[in-house]
């Protein structure tokens, strides 16, 4: 057993490292949660649970990370919790994501109304994708994760992740085209 002083120092070092991780990735976890569950209330809960669980397993994760970034591990926790959330409540995201833009960006002119319609259509298309494709797109475009990070978060190979992203974008393109085609006069 380690001497009390070294245990205390190790604990302090871990707490500092966790605090850094928290500050660096709170927005990532919240963004991921928000786009997964579709509303702010549940996104807050999911973010809170993610960090509490991460805190409990942080020492081991750090040991096993071998110096690699811990963001994929953090997002994987959120991913698993989100899966439980849907399983427990037997539901899929039903709340349309419609106010994220109001928080993250300010739209001021009427000239971009059509543009906003396009973005809305894209979001609706994303919500219709199968879970794994939707998640891959959220990680890539909301969080800016690269293929390797996404692969680690989803527990897939780099190659499989590349294919997953490609298929997600192609399917989304088709979905949006069909939706747009259906609204044409």
């Amino acid at each position, binding site marked *: 057993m380690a001497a*009390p002083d070294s245990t205390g120092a190790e*604990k302090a070092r871990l*707490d500092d490292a*966790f605090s850094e991780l*928290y500050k660096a990735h*709170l*927005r*990532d976890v*919240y*963004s991921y949660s*928000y*786009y997964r569950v579709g509303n*702010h*209330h549940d*996104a*807050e809960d999911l*973010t*809170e*649970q993610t*960090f*509490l*669980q991460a*805190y*409990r397993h942080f020492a081991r994760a750090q040991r096993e990370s071998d110096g690699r970034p811990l963001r994929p591990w953090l997002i994987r926790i959120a991913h698993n919790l989100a899966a439980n959330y849907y399983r427990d409540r037997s539901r899929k995201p039903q709340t349309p994501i419609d106010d*994220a*833009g109001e*928080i*993250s*960006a300010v739209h001021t002119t009427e000239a971009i109304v059509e543009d906003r319609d*396009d*973005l*809305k259509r*894209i*979001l609706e298309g*994303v919500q219709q994708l199968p879970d794994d494709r939707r998640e891959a*797109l*959220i990680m*890539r*475009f*909301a*969080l800016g994760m690269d293929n390797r990070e996404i692969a680690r978060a989803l527990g897939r190979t780099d190659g499989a992740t590349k294919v997953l992203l490609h298929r997600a*974008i192609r399917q*989304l*393109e088709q979905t*949006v*085209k069909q939706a*747009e*085609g259906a609204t*044409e006069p």
Partner: protein
Amino acid sequence: MSEHPDDFVVGHRQFADIETLLRRALSPVEPPKELEARLEARLGSLVDMAAEELDALEISAMRDPRNWARPVVAVAVGSTAAVGLVLVRTQRRRHKRRREADSTVDLVGRTLRDLGREARRVADDLL
């Protein structure tokens, strides 16, 4: 609109490159300030405090009754905080429950279910 090799045409309109649209549609969402404050408070006190107090005690030291006060205090503080958290989180959902309930009995049932759910979640955090 200028044409770009990655743009795709739908009906009479032309969409921008879908990846550009995705990047804008899925823009990062800033967490609410209250969440930051709540999380920092929880991480900084509830879990940390109880765990640190309990972890700091050597099992051998437990044989000495003079050392029993610390874990009892840690457990008591942790339990009080946990009960408080369950109540606060259940209270936060009251508007949603009222909206969804179709009778007083239903509302009571929903409140009890919420209490149970939050208690289980807080217990999971602590164990």
